[in-house]
């Protein structure tokens, strides 16, 4: 409350004296009255030290810079110091400065032609200089005033180098200088974590590491910590190289092994000497790369969730001899203990911790009824034991938690430092308001870290980063909200909808980041609600949004995260949503057109960033318009108004050609303008794709559906994907079936087949609902729908044949894989779960789960037939959720159902080849 008042005072001061605008807001600002004075030529005198020199560099003066010689501040000038030094003490006395006794805090006084910037520590002084930079107007003048300020959260943000900042170095002759400029911008936002140095690893050559050392030391001088992710692996092979001994391969390694496309990790808990050697290799790397005082998160084996954390069941005989099944915590404590000791010995200033596995504190909210002994052992007891047996300075890392979870975890781990990441949201838009919840990680007397990860998936979204800075520097920032443990990122509220963020914070961010001239245009762009990633992949995005709405910690890369969030309403992808994107894109194009002239004088980093918008906006518009037309066309086709659909689509085709021409010409004209889009970036949904989609819809509109007679072979179209391929392999066994993978579900494509199997969910929803139903109802086709496609809300599918399957309300586990045929005989499903089906009025149950829940239902719709199957044509590995790799075919009940479906649709009897 106190701090909120302080910020309120600041705002009052701003209003009364037209005081400077700060981003992030400062805790206290007091206008001193009197005349503004010119600082543009004042000499800058600073104390020695990298951060203080960097601070001096931030001061917007072209006066001489020098280190203080005698500890005295004499005459006019800008003086930069730390509070504990004589020089700092002198400045504090002279200006009656009360320097906050908080890490990274500072005080500023500007009056009578003199400016004093005194930090509680060197980094505080640097932040003071950054703030002072915002006090100075374009003309180099400053209003007399005082500032006292400090951050509430000491470790803020986590700007990705690999995914973001490096893009500012592409194409530059001096890549190092370009990267440093980008780091300057991070520092100016008062964010202090960077991550993802993808180009290097402990396997990198020394020369490469020394290049990066200069970068990380430069960042550290500006208060920025490298946040690196180490590993408990004993050996590692990655893109940079390998330290795996000869003869060790995934096949020969006896203990746990993790393979990803970019590397192999070899784990074992039983060999302390190897663990020590690996820790030393990692310490060497940190030292050589300049990350010796970074934030080091040691990643354990990633997998198995609480059922088999870290794949503990797969550990080797030596591990088993040393640790029994219930002693994973002992093994971890031993291993983390070794790593911590080595790293803190060799890199004493590093902050060391781990996302100890499973790293989802949210899972503490698992319902009481589901808390098995294994669950307790794997999570609460494991964390408790590690807390008791690891050094108190070893931090634990997890996803951000709501207050309720925080209370629970603090019962187990009362005082340890936590490193919280946001929920890894996959934002579809450009500016995201969700980081207004960042300060949830703040706890009194803690040094918790907030590591955002979501914003950097494709780019550094500077304004979003500024919002993080705003909410972490000031936990009580006006827009700040507590994360309630539910949806962290929500497309409905986070790209245009949060009132405070969009009416107060964003305009301020734009003014401070872009300058007053460009700010209005950029504010329009950023608040437009445009969602480029949604435009690129509407069904994928909507699916993700709804997954997040169901499970706040949903991570597409991990299927096992969980939380106790109550499901909230699902987002339905409508024509109106796409129409809104067209309007948003139009707004962006217009705003950016108007802003281009004003962007000439932008510094390099911002100019590149600006140009990214300018290059993309016309593609956003072209894409949104094309997609909207396709949706309209498909909707009309579904309604049987094919002629109207064809007219709309024909006109849309012409328009799309023109729109993409404009976008391509714009892109070409800006070819020499550097951007932050990445090397040779091209908008993925270009002219050809858009026209192809329009043509597909057009071909659907032109199809006159008529029933067909099955020929010599039953022609079966199957959608791509693993289950589709498996189904094709199975149907290829029959002499009178010709199965093909369909490239699309356009009506013209569907109409080629006697029946189709639709297995995946990547279709445009309008096309799916319109074409699939029309094909059956009017074209007398047969459609087999797999899994949630019968109509599962969670997967954003409404029942396409409600008369056959009224709903598919839930996904059920079925690890026994037992099922029953219609006649009551037993059968086995290939996969370990299924979607329960509720038969509609015309639905006939074909098979059920062992408990009688319908899992396959068929029936007639119009002239055709539908067959809905809740289980998947996927092969489970050893009764687990893992899917078999390689060329598997259908078996058991799945095979029978596929055969029955084709026979049901076609009236033909399938005969195997060679019979």
């Amino acid at each position, binding site marked *: 409350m106190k701090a909120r008042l302080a910020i309120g005072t600041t705002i009052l001061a701003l209003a009364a004296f037209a005081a400077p605008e700060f981003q992030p807001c400062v805790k206290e600002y007091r206008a001193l009255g009197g005349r503004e004075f010119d600082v543009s030529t004042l000499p800058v005198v600073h104390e020695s030290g990298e951060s203080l020199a960097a601070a001096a560099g931030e001061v917007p003066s072209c006066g001489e810079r020098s280190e203080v010689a005698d500890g005295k501040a004499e005459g006019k000038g800008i003086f930069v110091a730390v509070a504990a030094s004589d020089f700092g003490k002198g400045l504090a006395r002279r200006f009656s400065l009360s320097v906050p006794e908080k890490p990274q805090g500072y005080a500023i006084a500007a009056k009578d032609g003199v400016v004093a910037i005194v930090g509680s520590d060197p980094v505080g002084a640097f932040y003071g200089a950054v703030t002072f930079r915002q006090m100075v107007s374009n003309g180099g003048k400053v209003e007399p005033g005082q500032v006292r300020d400090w951050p509430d959260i000491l470790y803020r943000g986590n700007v990705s180098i690999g995914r973001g900042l490096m893009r500012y170095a592409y194409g530059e002759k001096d890549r190092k200088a370009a990267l440093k400029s980008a780091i300057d911008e991070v520092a100016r936002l008062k964010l202090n974590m960077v991550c993802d140095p993808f180009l290097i690893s402990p396997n990198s050559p020394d020369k490469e590491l020394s290049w990066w050392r200069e970068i990380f030391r430069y960042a550290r001088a500006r208060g920025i910590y490298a946040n690196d992710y180490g590993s408990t692996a004993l050996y590692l092979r990655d893109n940079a190289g390998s330290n795996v001994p000869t003869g060790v391969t995934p096949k020969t390694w006896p203990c746990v092994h993790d393979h990803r496309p970019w590397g192999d990790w070899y784990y074992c808990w039983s060999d302390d000497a190897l663990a020590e050697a690996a820790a030393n290799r990692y310490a060497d790397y940190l030292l050589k790369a300049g990350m010796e005082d970074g934030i080091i998160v040691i990643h354990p084996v990633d997998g198995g969730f609480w059922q088999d954390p870290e794949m503990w069941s797969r550990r080797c005989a030596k591990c088993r001899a040393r640790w029994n099944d219930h002693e994973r915590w002992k093994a971890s404590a031993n291993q983390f203990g070794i790593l911590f000791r080595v790293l803190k010995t060799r890199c004493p200033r590093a902050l060391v911790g781990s996302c100890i596995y499973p790293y989802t504190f949210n899972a503490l909210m698992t319902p009481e009824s589901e808390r098995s002994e294994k669950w307790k052992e794997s999570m609460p007891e494991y964390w408790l034991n590690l807390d008791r047996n690891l050094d108190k300075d070893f931090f634990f890392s997890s996803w951000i938690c709501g207050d309720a979870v925080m209370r629970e975890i603090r019962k187990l781990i009362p005082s340890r430092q936590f490193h919280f990441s946001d929920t890894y949201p996959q934002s579809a838009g450009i500016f995201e308001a969700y980081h207004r919840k960042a300060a949830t990680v703040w706890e009194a007397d803690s040094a918790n870290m907030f590591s955002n990860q979501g914003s950097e998936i494709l780019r550094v979204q500077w304004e979003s980063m500024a919002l993080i800075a705003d909410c972490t520097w000031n936990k009580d920032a006006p827009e700040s909200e507590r994360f309630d443990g539910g949806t962290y990122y929500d497309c409905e509220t986070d790209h245009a909808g949060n009132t405070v963020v969009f009416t107060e914070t964003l305009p301020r961010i734009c003014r401070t980041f872009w300058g007053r001239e460009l700010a209005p245009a950029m504010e329009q762009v950023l608040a437009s609600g445009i969602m480029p990633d949604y435009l690129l992949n509407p069904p994928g995005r909507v699916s993700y949004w709804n997954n997040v709405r169901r499970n706040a910690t949903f991570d597409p890369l991990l299927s096992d995260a969980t939380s106790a969030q109550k499901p909230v309403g699902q987002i339905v992808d409508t024509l109106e949503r796409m129409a809104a994107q067209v309007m948003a894109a139009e707004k962006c194009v217009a705003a950016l057109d108007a802003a281009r002239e004003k962007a000439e004088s932008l510094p390099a980093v911002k100019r590149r960033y600006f140009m990214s918008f300018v290059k993309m906006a016309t593609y956003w518009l072209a894409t949104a318009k094309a997609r909207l037309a396709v949706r309209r066309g498909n909707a009309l086709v579904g309604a049987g108004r094919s002629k109207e659909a064809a007219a709309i689509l024909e006109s849309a085709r012409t328009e799309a050609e023109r729109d993409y021409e404009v976008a391509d010409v714009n892109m070409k004209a800006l070819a020499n303008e550097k951007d932050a889009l990445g090397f040779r970036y091209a908008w993925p949904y270009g002219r050809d794709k858009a026209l192809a989609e329009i043509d597909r819809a057009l071909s659907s509109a032109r199809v006159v559906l008529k*029933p067909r007679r099955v020929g010599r072979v039953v*022609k079966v179209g199957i959608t791509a994907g693993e289950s589709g391929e498996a189904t094709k392999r199975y149907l290829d066994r029959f002499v009178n079936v010709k199965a093909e993978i369909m490239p699309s579900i356009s009506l013209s494509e569907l109409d080629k087949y006697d029946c189709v199997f639709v297995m995946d969910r990547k279709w445009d929803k309008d096309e799916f609902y319109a074409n699939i139903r029309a094909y059956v109802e009017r074209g007398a086709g047969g459609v087999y729908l797999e899994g949630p496609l019968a109509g599962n809300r969670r997967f954003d599918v409404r029942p396409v044949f409600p008369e056959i399957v009224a709903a598919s309300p839930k996904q059920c586990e079925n690890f026994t894989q037992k099922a029953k045929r219609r006649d009551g*005989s037993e059968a086995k499903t290939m996969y370990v779960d299924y979607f329960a089906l509720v038969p509609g009025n015309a639905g006939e149950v074909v098979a059920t789960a062992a408990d009688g829940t319908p899992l396959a239902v068929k029936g007639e719709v119009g002239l055709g037939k539908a067959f809905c199957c809740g289980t998947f044509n996927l092969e489970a590995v050893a009764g687990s959720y893992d899917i078999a790799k390689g060329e598997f075919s259908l078996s058991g009940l799945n095979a029978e159902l596929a055969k029955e479906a084709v026979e049901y649709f076609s*009236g*033909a009897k399938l*005969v195997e080849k060679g*019979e």
Partner: protein
Amino acid sequence: MTRTLAIMLAVVFAVMGFVSADETVWIGEHIVDQPLRFARKGLSVRPGAKVVFRGEGRITIENASFVADGAAFESDGILTNAFRISVSGGKMDMTRCRVSCVRSHEPSKGKAHYIFGAFWSQYGGGSRLVGNEFRGSSAVTYANATGVEVRDNLFLRSDRAGVCLFHVVNPVVVRNEFMKSVGDALYLNAAEGADVRENRFTDCAVGMVNMSCCRCRFSGNSFFGGATGIAFRWAGGENLYSANLFEDVKGSAFTAIEAMGADNVFANNLVSRCGYGWSLGKQKSKRRIVLRDNAVSETGTGISIAEGEVDAPNNAFWKVRTPVVAKGEAKVSTPKMVTSDPLFKDPSRGDYRLNPDSPLLNAGVNGGNIGLYQ
């Protein structure tokens, strides 16, 4: 002696199944290696049961019902010229059964009589044969039966014939799959009022033989490959052959080995990539044969007749080497013949639906379409 046999049979039944008041029920596996006779009390073979015929083993049902559902029938040998199963006077109901290699004559060893070459005979009574699969077996033969329903069965590699109907009234033969029959897949002799519909004949030597059948309706059947689609022998009249598809039949879609009876109509059939459309030979009926609204495409000869008259209005011939061959005194009148591209949707993939601009649309006798689709 009879008493001893009865006691023995009772013991056998007690071991193999159980005897209910009305019928004997078989579950599990049964070896039939000697003749078994069920009179008055029927036999019911339950789902999952397996019946294996050996040696002289056969089942005779007299004036009783025979019901089999979801059972398997096999044979490890051939019982030459005798039925493995014969039902007379009772009702037969066989559903979802699998019949493998139950033969009653040596395959490929000369012609066997249709009746005596069958492994199964039903004489009189009613019969329902639904959803069964017959693989490599001899024929199922019905004689003088009524209420015969043969539906949704598979007859694969039938030996000599798949189904034979002798003197059967109003039989329904619907949606069966006949594939790779060595002889005549479906044989009808003196059947009356048959409804033969939506069956598929693939690579059968002869798809269907119609011998002296009257007032039957053959519609929506498909014939793929093989030597002959439908063969006629002897006079049978008032039959309608409509909307049948013949594709890649090497010989004739329709062939008359003997003269047909009166008032046979062929309408809306489609012949594609065949040797002949209609090979009618010598027809003697004073009443003309009517061929209307048929489409013949990519075929050697459309209509060939050596004697008699044919009315063939509103037929389409596209890429037919010789649309009509009328020898000697024979006459074929072909008013409103269409010879332009029929614009089928995708004939190479067997899709003969008409494109919106097809000349066959509304070009039929009564303003309907020529070809399969109305």
